[in-house]
Each structure stands twice: as C-alpha cells, then as structure tokens.
C-alpha cells in the first residue's frame, strides 16, 4: 500500500514538474553552434534579392551563417511583427529591413536600434544619396538607425497589347510623349476607354493617388501630410489637395478598374489583362512580373510617369539593439547596402539602388528588362533617382496615409462623393494623428 501511494505521489510530482517545465522553458534560440559559427538572421518583406549576396558573404566569412526570414511577405504583415519583437525586446533578426514610412516612427524612439555611427558608419556616407543618408539619421543627427537599400524612382508601366487594341501608340517614347502631365494622362485614358477594349485604363485610384501626392509634394513644399515641424497639414497643404483633385478627375472619368491594391482581385486583374497602366516605382516591376506571370512577357513596357518624377518607397537595413551579434550584423548590413550589394539586388529583383556609385555603374545604367520588352530600366529609373526630391514624412505618416487612401477608395467605389471623401480624409487623418 505504501509503495503504491509513493509511486502515485512520484507520478504527481513528475507531472507537475514537467508541466512547470513546459510552461517556463521558452527561449534559448540556439544561436551559436558552439564551433564558433555565428548565425545572423535577416528579416525582410517582399523581394530584396539578396540570395546570391548571402552566398558570396558566407564564402568570404566562413564563421558566419545567414538565415533570411519573410521573403515574399507583405509589408502590412511584416511591420506589426517587427514592432512587436522590438517592444518585447526579443525575436527580431540581427539585421532588419525597415520601410521608409515606418522608419519615421522608429526614429522618434531610436532606443531600439544600434547607433551605426558608433560602428564606424560615418565613413559610408558617400555611398548613399544625400537625402537617403539623412533620412536614416535621428532629428538631432546623433544616431544613424538604418543604411539605405533602395529608392522608388517612378515610371508608368503599360500593356502594349491593350494600347494597340485601343488604337494608341505602343512604342515607349511615343507613349511617354502622350502624357507630359496628369491632365494629358486623363485625356489618353478617355480615348482608351472610348475604344472599349474590355479593360480599364488603370488598376486602382489609390496607387495613382499615392504617386501623384508624393510627386506633387516633392516638387513643391517637400512634405505632404506633415510639415517639417511635424504639424499635421493634410487640410492646408495645397500639394495634398491638388493631388486629391487630380485623382478625383481620374475617378470621375471612369478610368479606374477599382481593383483594391494588393488584393486577390488585383492579382487576378493582372493575370487577365484587365487594366492597361499602373503607376510603377522601380520595385513594382518585380511585382508586375510576379502577378502577370510568364505568359505576359513582352506585352508590358515602361514609359515616363506623367508630371516631373518623384519617389515612392524604398527601405533601410537596421540592427536592433537586442541582437547578440551586433558587430557581425553591422558588417553584414554594410556589405548588403554597399554599391556592390545594391547592384546585386537590382539584378536579382529590381529594387533601384540608393547609392550614386551603383547608379553610375554600367551594370545599372545599361540594364534592360526582358520582361518589359527590353525596356532600358537602368536609364528610366536611374535618371529620375539622381534628381528626385524626397518627401518629408511625419511621426504618424503611415496611419494618416491609410486614412487618406481609404477616403480615395470610398470615392472610387461610389460610396462617397468627392466632397464627402475629402471631408472624411481630413477628419479621419486628424483622428489618426491624435491616436
């Protein structure tokens, strides 16, 4: 009897102990193999095109192993995850990619990141376009959070087959000549619509609006939703209203296919050739190729964007303070953002370099894209990148942008009149900024 109960007691104790162990035994991510090898984790979203560069780096540094996470994922899912890791003080990679819109929010509280200036980054300054370098610095200029990877020089991608069907020119210079301004673009769109090809002229008004607002702001005040003193100026900045009105013209003329950007419908519309043009920052070329698929190879081409060029998107690489291998991580980030690294990424997946040396490199200047009818992508995008004027982004840029874009979308879907939409955009943006 005594033996049984003792055995039972032992069982109970064992059960309790294992439960406790199971609940407490987290952590210990097994970073170091013990043989001196360091594993560096790189967190990215979308396509950064680093695979070949990793191989090269690992060959040159036998003590380093690189693991990439998040390739192909979308930014809307990546950003909250990264923020959670930083807030929890655990989980983030050793090198993390940060999109420019989120960088402004991180800059307000830079404590989560290693100051790259402490790791000798100052001498890398010449490797980046001035504004790209400066945007990586905190307001007081004392901390460098991230090194620039790419910029989003603008263009307009179009489908030659649909243009031919509508009786429009198909050759890229002739197409560029069609639309020096956005008003001309609308007029071309009306001609296209009148031809009844069964396709819309453009994919979604939000994408076009985003292009126009960044362009208008870049060419006038240099800021859009926030002024450089971080005051919300959505309702008073003429650049925003002007971009809004141009977009309303586009919607009014019935040019938009209303495919919600990045939705499944949007992807299907690519596959079924349901729209003829799409506002096209350099990184978008990879997206188009991925969605439209190999069948559409040679049917796409790239023309100049209406208006005067501009910048949409572009990312940075940063090293979170929680990384256990800060020095190695900084070295890797430096390599990936070097002129050589940026050229490699461009060749692999198309993100346009933010390094002047890389932009001048014949590998970029002479690059063509076979998918886009051998368009000289190097020339088209790089020319704009050298002269473009960046747009300043305020602390709640992402939240405000979301509200304004949603207002555009409600008008596009016919849920609001343009006037109501504008009222919504302003009130919701103010609410978002106050949250």
């Amino acid at each position, binding site marked *: 009897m*005594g033996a049984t109960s003792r055995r039972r007691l032992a069982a109970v104790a064992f059960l309790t102990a294992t439960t406790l162990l199971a609940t407490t035994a987290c952590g210990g991510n097994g970073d170091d193999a013990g043989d001196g090898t360091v594993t560096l984790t790189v967190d990215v979203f979308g396509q950064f095109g680093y695979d070949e560069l990793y191989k090269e780096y690992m060959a040159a540094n036998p003590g380093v192993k690189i693991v990439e996470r998040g390739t192909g994922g979308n930014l809307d899912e990546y950003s909250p995850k990264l923020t959670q890791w930083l807030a929890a003080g655990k989980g983030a990679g050793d090198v993390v990619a940060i999109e420019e819109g989120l960088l402004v929010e991180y800059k307000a509280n830079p404590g989560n990141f290693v100051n790259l200036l402490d790791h000798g980054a100052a001498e890398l300054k010449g490797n980046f376009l001035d504004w790209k370098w400066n945007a990586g610095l905190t307001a007081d200029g004392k901390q460098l959070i991230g090194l620039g990877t790419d910029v989003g020089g603008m263009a307009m991608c179009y489908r030659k087959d649909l243009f031919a069907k509508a009786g429009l020119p198909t050759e890229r210079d002739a197409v560029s000549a069609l639309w020096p301004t956005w008003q001309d673009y609308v007029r071309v769109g009306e001609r296209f619509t009148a031809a009844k090809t069964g396709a819309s002229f453009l994919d979604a008004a939000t994408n076009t609006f985003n292009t126009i607002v960044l362009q208008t702001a870049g060419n006038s005040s240099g800021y859009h939703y926030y002024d450089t003193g971080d005051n919300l100026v959505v309702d008073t900045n003429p650049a925003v209203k002007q971009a809004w009105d141009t977009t309303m013209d586009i919607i009014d003329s019935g040019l938009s296919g209303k495919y919600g950007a990045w939705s499944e419908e949007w992807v299907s519309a690519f596959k079924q050739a349901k729209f003829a043009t799409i506002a096209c920052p350099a990184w978008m070329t990879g997206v188009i190729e991925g969605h439209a698929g190999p069948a559409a190879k040679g049917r796409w081409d790239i023309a100049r964007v209406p208006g005067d060029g501009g910048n949409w998107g572009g990312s940075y690489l940063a090293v979170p303070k929680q990384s256990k291998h800060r020095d190695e991580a900084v070295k890797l980030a430096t390599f990936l953002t070097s002129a050589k690294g940026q050229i490699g990424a461009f060749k692999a997946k198309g993100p346009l370099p933010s390094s002047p040396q890389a932009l001048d490199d014949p590998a970029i200047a002479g690059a063509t894209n076979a998918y886009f009818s051998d368009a000289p992508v190097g020339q088209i995008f790089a020319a704009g990148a050298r002269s473009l004027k960046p747009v300043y982004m305020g602390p709640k840029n992402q939240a405000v942008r979301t509200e304004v874009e949603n207002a555009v979308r409600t008008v596009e879907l016919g849920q609001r009149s343009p006037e109501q939409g504008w009222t919504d955009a302003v009130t919701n943006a103010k609410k978002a900024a106050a949250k």
Partner: protein
Amino acid sequence: MSVQLDARPPVAAAPPVRPTRSYRLSRFDARWSPYLYIAPFFLLFAVFGAYPLAYTLWVSLHEWDLLGTEPTFVGAENYTRLLADPDFWHAVVNTLGIFVISTVPQLLAALWLANLLNRQLRARTGWRMAVLVPNVTSTAAVAIVFGVLFGREFGMVNWLLDLVGVDAIDWKANRVASWVAISTMVDWRWTGYNALIFLAAMQAIPRDLYESAAIDGASRARQFWSITVPLLRPTIIFAVIISTIGGLQLFTEPRLFHAGTNAIRGGPSRESQTVTMYMFENAFAPYYNFGYGSAVAWLLFALIAVVAVVNVLIIRRLGTDAGPRTGGRKGGRG
C-alpha cells in the same frame, strides 16, 4: 484459545514506526493529491489566462506607445475615449450583426442535421465524421477560398447571380453583404461541429420516451419539438455560450476576407471590421497604441459576458415555455 487472543493488548499489535509513517503518507495522499492532479490546469490557467488578463488591464490604464519607451499612467482615460469613439461602436455593431446572422441559422441547421444523423442510416459513422470535415480545414484556407468566391468581378457567387439575372454585388464594400459573406464562412465551418455535440446529447435521451410518444400518436416533428429540444436544453445553452465566445471574437475570417492594403479595417469604410480587428488595428499597425488596444480587449470581454448572459436567459425562457409534457421525467438526460 480465543480468550488468549482477545486478551492480547492492542497496543503491541505492530511496531510503532512503520504504520504511522505509511498512515501519514496515505492520509497526505488522500487529502492533497487530488489538488495536485488538478493543479496543472490551474497553473496553466494562471500563466496563460489570469496573468495576461490582469496585465492587459494594467496596460489599458496607460498611455502606452508600442514604439515608445516610457508608458504613462492615465487611469480610465482610454476607456472614456473609447466609449465616445464611433469607430469602436461601428465595430461592435458589425460584430453583433455578423454574430446574429451566423449563429442563429448555424445552430438551427446543426440541430436539424443532428436529428437526421440520429436516424438509422447506412454508413452512419461515415456521415457523422463527414460533417466534421469543414472544421478540420484551416480557417485561413477557408477564408481565402471564400474571399475569392465572393469577389466583385471574378467571383463565382456573382457569376451565379448573374445567371439568374441578379446584378453583381460588391460583397466586400457593402456592409450587410460582407456580413452575409463572412457568416457563410463561419456557418460552413462550425455547423457540423455543433451538430455532433447535439447528436451526442440526443443519443443520451432514453428511447422509451419516443416509443411512448409514438404510441400516443405523436408525429416525428412533434416528438422533435416536445421531447428532443427540451431535453437538449443544457446542451443548447452550452453551444450558445461557446458560439457567443467564438462569434464575438471573430477575427481570421473577416481579416482574410479583405486582402490587400490595410485589410485590418475590413473594407475602406470599415464595412466588416469586428471588435478584435479594431483592437489589433489600435494596439498594432498602424497606430501602435497598446493602451488603447488593451482597453478595447477589456470592453470586448465585458461585451461577451453580457451577450452570453442574455443568450442564456433567452434560451432558458424558450425551454420553459415549450417545456416537456411527457410525464415526470424532467431532466432525464443525467
């Protein structure tokens, strides 16, 4: 002989040390080991249930920027702001709307399905297992497939509607239409699950009740409403509470129904944003306002409690009104 035995003093029966120890051990065992047996649940609950609950409450009393460093204590400010936030109430209405149009038909269908499965069928086990199949598939896959089916332009539902001459519906940008679309997902997934629970309860109802009802001339429908449903009442209450908790926490289906940029809003003007989505939107991207998001979580908790109580009251009412008139065998289900 016997006298001699009886005369032996009881004290000398055994050496004193061993029995006491084993006696103590077995007393200890009898008294305390039940607590140890149930301890794992409570330990887990404390770690994964009570602690997060309390921590969320603590967070909700702060101005807590997820990207920032120092949270500041603001008391109930998040709650007062939230109660005056029209977007929050919009999300509450959406959630309740989706909950009602998904749960009511779902439980009725489950009841009907369970009744069918309770009959003599060929390959009975096969049918019973088959109704659970939708529940085994991943929610994400279901939501994506339904999201495509309910597409505005390329969706199959609109194509079918077109065949019968109905104009295309923008399922994602029309408030009530999006509720319906999301409800079909929920129904598809959970009807079979509830049917199996009902079926299990039905099988515990004594056969003789039906036999005597049949002798009294009660039809099948009459038997169903006068015997099955009333005796199933505790199970129905259970199913309703579980559905309330699940329904009001609905997240994956409406979130994945809207793909693309800021899907967390459930459409450009928040057509089908549920409370959990609103919580996520505030606590994480794009606002990173952890305190405000936690306040939403706590109000959702309160909302679930209220709705669950209301539901139970309604169901109990229904039960007593149409109470069993079949002799004294109340609560025969045991």
